[in-house]
């Protein structure tokens, strides 16, 4: 390392600084070194040499910088590289998650896969599809939405338009608490109520009741935020014209905030679509098409992924189907998210 190229420019006011390409040079050097060391030591894992390179980068830039620029700048550089390392450390697995799902998922994902069930297909054989799972997911999520949107929106209206005093405070607090209920606990509650006390069998509806418990607090929270954004002048103008309060809410407040409310509901739907645990406890899953959500086990997309994985016996065909279902599920949720954000952006500025 020749000091001439790193030529510290000294003048009376500024301390020495390293050129901009310094960080990149150290990064490249430590990548090469890290790879070299792991090749020499016979380490075969990608993770290992990446970690070695990361450590080399942090140590190297600190040492060089503290020598030339002084310790404060060196600390700054270390912090910068730690932040970059944190970013890369997280991005690699998360990118791998999306990449593997996309790559392995497209193998069997086609029209046949989307329109057939697993009815007569053995677990380890290729073939079959996710039609029954898509049907089940749509019905369960649809029912859960039907149950939780009215309750959620009305609760939010109560909190924003009427709520004063202890009741409103209690509701706010418990909605917050509900947000944190683990999905498996929601499933257990419906299980103890529905299956053990009412003696009802597994059904899609039981699952959607558990999903509603998870969805209601999300809807309340987002709707509340949206209603709070409606300017008071609108309410006052309407009331001053003699319009009753309930019509003011229905005709003025809700239409003004409807875009945001829809966005919130769609994000809530996206959240519950991927829930597996309550479905596992209450809907059980099946290989056959069951269009009736009120009787007998149903399938859902997350449940399908789990069953394909669990019953595969290590068969590649079942894993392929699981990945394809995972890709379908992610695509569905991402589209919901994107559309919801689109609506939010489109409706936001007035």
């Amino acid at each position: 390392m020749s000091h001439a190229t790193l030529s510290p420019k000294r003048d009376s006011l500024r301390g020495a600084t390293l050129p901009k390409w310094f960080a990149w040079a150290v990064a490249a050097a430590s990548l090469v070194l890290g790879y070299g060391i792991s090749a020499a030591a016979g380490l075969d894992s990608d993770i290992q040499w990446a970690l070695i390179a990361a450590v080399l980068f942090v140590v190297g830039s600190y040492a060089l910088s503290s020598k030339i620029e002084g310790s404060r700048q060196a600390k700054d550089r270390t912090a910068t590289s730690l932040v970059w390392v944190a970013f890369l450390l997280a991005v690699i697995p998360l990118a791998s998650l999306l990449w593997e799902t996309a790559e392995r998922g497209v193998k069997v994902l086609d029209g046949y896969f989307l329109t057939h069930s697993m009815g007569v297909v053995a677990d380890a054989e290729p073939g079959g599809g996710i039609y029954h799972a898509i049907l089940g997911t749509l019905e369960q999520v649809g029912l859960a939405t039907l149950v939780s949107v009215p309750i959620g929106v009305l609760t939010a209206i109560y909190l924003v338009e009427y709520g004063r005093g202890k009741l409103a405070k209690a509701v706010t607090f418990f909605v917050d608490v509900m947000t944190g209920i683990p999905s498996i606990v929601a499933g257990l509650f419906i299980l103890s109520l529905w299956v053990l006390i009412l003696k009802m069998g597994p059904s899609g509806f039981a699952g959607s009741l558990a999903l509603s418990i998870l969805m209601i607090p999300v809807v309340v929270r987002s709707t509340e935020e949206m209603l709070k954004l409606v300017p008071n002048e609108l309410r006052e103008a309407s009331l001053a014209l003699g319009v009753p309060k309930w019509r003011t809410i229905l005709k003025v407040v809700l239409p003004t905030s409807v875009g945001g409310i829809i966005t919130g509901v769609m994000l809530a739907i996206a959240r519950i679509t991927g829930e597996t645990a309550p479905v596992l406890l209450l809907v059980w899953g099946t290989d056959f098409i069951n269009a009736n959500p009120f009787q007998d086990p149903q399938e859902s997309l997350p449940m399908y992924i789990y069953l394909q994985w669990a019953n595969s016996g290590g068969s590649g065909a079942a894993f392929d189907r699981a990945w394809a279902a995972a890709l379908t599920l992610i695509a569905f949720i991402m589209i919901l998210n994107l559309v919801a954000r689109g609506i939010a952006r489109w409706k936001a500025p007035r």
Partner: protein
Amino acid sequence: MDTTTQQTTAPPAPGPAAPADKGTGRGATRPGDRIFLGLSRGSGIFVLVLMAAIASFLTYRASLAISKDEANFFTSFEWNPTGLPPEFGIAVLAFGTIVSSVIAMAIAVPISVGIALFITHYAPRRLGGLIAYVIDLLAAVPSIVYGLWGALVLVPHMDGLYGWLDDYLGWTGLFAWDGGPARSLLTVGILLALMILPIITNVSREVFRQVPRMHEEAALALGATRWEVIRMSVLPFGRSGVISASMLGLGRALGETMAVAMVLSPSFDITASLLDPGGGTFAQNIASKFNEATVMGQDALIASGMVLFVITLLVNGGARLIIARRKEYSGANA
């Protein structure tokens, strides 16, 4: 259906959060108003009733199971609720849940704070926005997909790290590895860390973004480096926000079911090494034992779910308290 809420004489609070008081209470006498108030208040009450029902049903079923339990519910290592006599305890589950969550937090919190700082203070503005958007979307990836990825991609890739840990840290006993598949609490912790990363990052990012510009510019004007700005103005301002974000993430890690059930190879004992398969968590145990359970077995699982419920309640409640305190604090400064 009385009119007390209409007659509150609270002074008109500022801001859109509090619609002006409708005063006279005459509105509530109209039938339409009364019905609408009844409906919306009813929904609010329904939420309370629902929470009470969840707590009481779980307590009821749990007490049925615990009263028949011949072993100590909190300290026993057994899980045999259908045996004669029934014996089960949550010691293993509590251990596994806490250990995996602690590993997850230890990995996820520093990295999330790093990414949040990266997005708000280091990355070019456009890149930062893009990353924030992608991380937002990642928060929506369902846990079952994390589980599938964890079981089929992460577990085989852990061998290198496990071998390394065993070579250099195996003597501690904590990181001893017998060479089996990496379906252990450590892998579960790493997977959980990945799952809660987006949540913690999102909330921390929001908090860091709210740091008053003046604080940062003042520090910069005094000649502070970027790191010194962060240490002196950003982190102190964001500390409580980061804590509450972490607790929200912890709440999710504690209750995570499917990803753990797919990655961990469970057993009812506590191994000294984090790298050996074994152990279990509350949620994982419920999901994997539920199928073969009788009514008594289900009650025992509900009892363990009850414990999980209480733990997550405490964690989330704590997070909310911190957030609420912070709100008042920042409101006073606004």
